[in-house]
């Protein structure tokens, strides 16, 4: 029997690539669609713009979601960068820096999954990945790319903290919940995460 189509656990199949890409694009659509109702939100934050950091997690969730669904090395990075490309193409967000942000944010999540050798996809790992992504985003904005470089030192710390918490809750928890809900619908049947809804939230996968 020929086994030419048998694939390694870590290599990307065409279906992995296309689904990862669609997750990124769907995230872009949601950002675009919600930005209308989000107008009210940002108006509320106009009084205190640093508060928008609390919403950053929304922009980080493609990274964690993509990795939890695809379960391949590089998925977090790929999805987050592609989501950033889509945002840039739609012209809803900052040109070149959005690509750098995508890279940095994706890397933050990717490193966490790599730390667990791409073998654990449970709730704590998802939360950590969200946290990692948020931490990277916050640190980069405060100290590297410097979009908030002019903040006072304490405000920079607030910014990093708020972004990290947002990443933990929105990107981490939300992505984990959505992955399980998706698995329940049978939509993930040809992916490594097809049994995500049956896996315990905390235990280690064998």
């Amino acid at each position, binding site marked *: *029997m*020929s*086994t*030419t*189509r*048998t694939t390694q656990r870590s290599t*990307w*199949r*065409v*279906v992995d*690539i*296309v*689904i*990862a*890409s*669609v*997750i*990124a*694009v*769907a995230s872009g*659509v*949601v950002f*675009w*669609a*919600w930005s209308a109702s989000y107008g009210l939100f*940002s108006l509320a934050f106009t009084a205190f*713009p*640093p508060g*928008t950091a609390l919403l950053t997690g929304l922009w980080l969730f493609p990274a964690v979601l993509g990795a939890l669904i695809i379960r391949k090395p590089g998925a977090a990075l790929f999805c987050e960068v*592609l989501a950033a490309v889509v945002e840039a*193409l*739609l*012209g*809803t*967000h*900052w*040109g*070149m*820096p959005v690509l750098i942000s995508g890279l940095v944010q994706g890397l933050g999540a990717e490193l966490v999954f790599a730390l667990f050798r791409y073998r654990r996809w449970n709730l704590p790992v998802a939360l950590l990945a969200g946290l990692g992504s948020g931490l990277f985003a916050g640190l980069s904005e405060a100290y*590297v*790319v*410097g*979009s*908030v*470089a*002019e*903040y*006072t030192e304490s*405000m920079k710390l607030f910014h990093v903290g708020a972004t990290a918490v947002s990443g933990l809750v929105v990107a981490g928890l*939300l992505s984990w*919940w*959505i992955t399980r*809900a*998706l698995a*329940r*619908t*049978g*939509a*993930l049947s040809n992916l490594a995460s*097809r049994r995500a809804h049956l896996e315990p939230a905390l235990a280690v996968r064998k």
Partner: protein
Amino acid sequence: MSAAANGRTAPLTRQGVEISARGFTWQHAERDRPAIAGLDVQIPAGQKVLLLGPSGAGKSTFLHALAGVLEVDQDAGPTGELLVGGQDAFACSFPVGLMQQDPETQVVQSRVGDDVAFGAENLGVDPQEIRERIPQALDAVGLGALGYEHRTQELSGGQKQRLALAGILAMRPGLMLLDEPTANIDPGSIPPLRDAVIGAVESTGATLIVVEHRLEAWARQVDRVLVLAPGGGIAHDLQPEALAGDAAVRAELAQAGVWIPGYVPQTSPAPRAGGAPMLHAEELVCARGEHAVRTAPASFEVTGGRALVIRGENGAGKSTLALTLGGLLEPVSGQFAASPQLADGLPPSPFSWKAGALVARIGSVFQEPEHQFVTQSVREELAFAPLRARHGAAEEQKYDPRQVEVRVQELLERLGLQDLAEANPFTLSGGEKRRLSVATVLAASPDVVILDEPTFGQDANTWRELAQLLIEELAESTAIIAVTHDEHFAAALGADELVLAPAEVAATRTSSGPMLDAPVGDSWLAKINPLAKFGAIAGATMPLISTVDWVSAAVVIAATLLMLPLAGLGIGGFFRRGWPLLAAGVLAAWGIALVGQDSGRVLLDLGIFDITEGSVAGGVATGLRALAMAVPMVLLLSTTNPSDLGGALSQQLKVPHRFVLGALAGMRLLGLMVEEFTTLTLARRARGIGNLGTVRQRVGAKLGQLLALLVQAIRRAGRLATTMEAKGFGTGQRTWIRTATFTRRDGAVLAAGVLLGAAAIAAAIWAGTYNLIW
């Protein structure tokens, strides 16, 4: 290359391949029994075969196995033997064409010419040869009039299927596999597609296997009919004539839900008596949005106990009318009013009703059942609308929870879904989903039920159950409105007919949402290599990261504005594209002014925060810097097609083409997803989810909508990946018909960008404003 050996001028000639299965069995992962078991069949080269069988008999699995797109892993695999042209099918030695039913996922690329070439490129065919095949293939499917640059997103469903066929023909396959190719296209588009298929296989000699539910179109055109048995193997091996003559075979196929020619399922007669008036429309004009195409005015009356069928050409706006009648869209002009009996104490405009009041009065069933699912089980799904239904002017609860339980139980029994009560709605079969989506609406017993193409793609059994269900509703004095092409369905319901005249403006399929592949025009910059432009922008903006000052930012912004004519943009067009960036820049500036590092005179004291000269200067610099880093991208975006950027990335930077083209294929679905998201919003209201409610309910509703979008998107992506694999994607070395080049002019653009970045920094240092942020 064997393809090239066919000669330049030869028409599409190639011998078909034979197929041989011996004891072939396929086991999917996580299934109890194999999808195909012990299949023995021989199909000679060039034969045209119609493949039938009840759902679950493994028809699609068999086609996917022949196309070599089934994945073998530790849980899934074949036993026995399946040969295509004498070679193992899983080795993919021959190009095989596969067409599936969803037109959206049969097209891979965003431009017509590229899409036709896609499969041949993957097979490594010489680009010169491919360029000659493209017009031949497009002519063969009757799309010769389309330009190569035509956007594939603008094609109708039937055209997309024919384009996919052209792409298959350009691969010169010896075997063509069609999996319900006409299930999702309107009846008028079926004959041209069918004729294109038959013409192509006859001129190339390719072997053809078609799976279809509706046999009318194919029965006369094929050589042989194979009927798969549910347990495995072949139940019947027939001459096509038997479909018309053999009563036993006809009865058996009808039992399995197959649409045999000349068969209409039996239903009880529809009641003829009309009841109370429900809806009244006078010169009603509808549209999806402010700038969308408007429907022709329509005047009509909807009465209880009667069915009304809405007909009209594609693009006439039948679905838009249905959404308006359902109280989901606001009428553009004319009169549209609910009768006092239907309104039940509320004002006459259904659009003004709250979602809970709406579901108790008018129910809307969407074309795609999954758009309407909002819960995690069939039982909850049925209970959802009645629990939210409100009646009377005071909007009291229509049913108490006890009554709801009784209604749900009744409906489960009526639909034969008792055993599936706890199943996730998304996991049901196509027919079960359709019945469930209708039942979820009937559950709140509205007086008017509106259905959009309810019988589209359904087998004869689901069709009969659906018609029977609606006839029973008519007997209960419910008014039924259906958008449908299906004459038998209209006849079964004894329906009146409303023909919607074509919309005034020719309905060009313009998408109202964002586009990723908007036309780029033919400006000077449009001809520059995308990577050169990208590099130039990086060179100009990346140095700005090192500093927060207004001088370097101003230099870059000024230079960008000066270059607008090169991109064919006026200042107006620039602001239309760039205004969100401006808004973001202002917000960033305000943030810094508020909490930035303070120095100098205090301008405003806000308690814990001060606005000072220093923080305002910091804010202005931050805002300008953000703008300067963002706006040059407008030059790239307005002059670059993402496909060209992808091609350059892959060919010149050697980014693996699987990732680049895989990403582009996914991105092509953007417009579709935006449409879907809008539809999902309407579908939520149709299920009784309003804009109001507790924070928890609203967050829940948003998450549910996100989930539904992702389910659709992931399913689509799976089918798209199958299409791409069937077109030989990702296996070997590919060729490109569009070769990316890097000329001296491209080099000059790149250098200009880098120089600009250096000049901006130099200006800031010279002006003394440069400050390193690290």
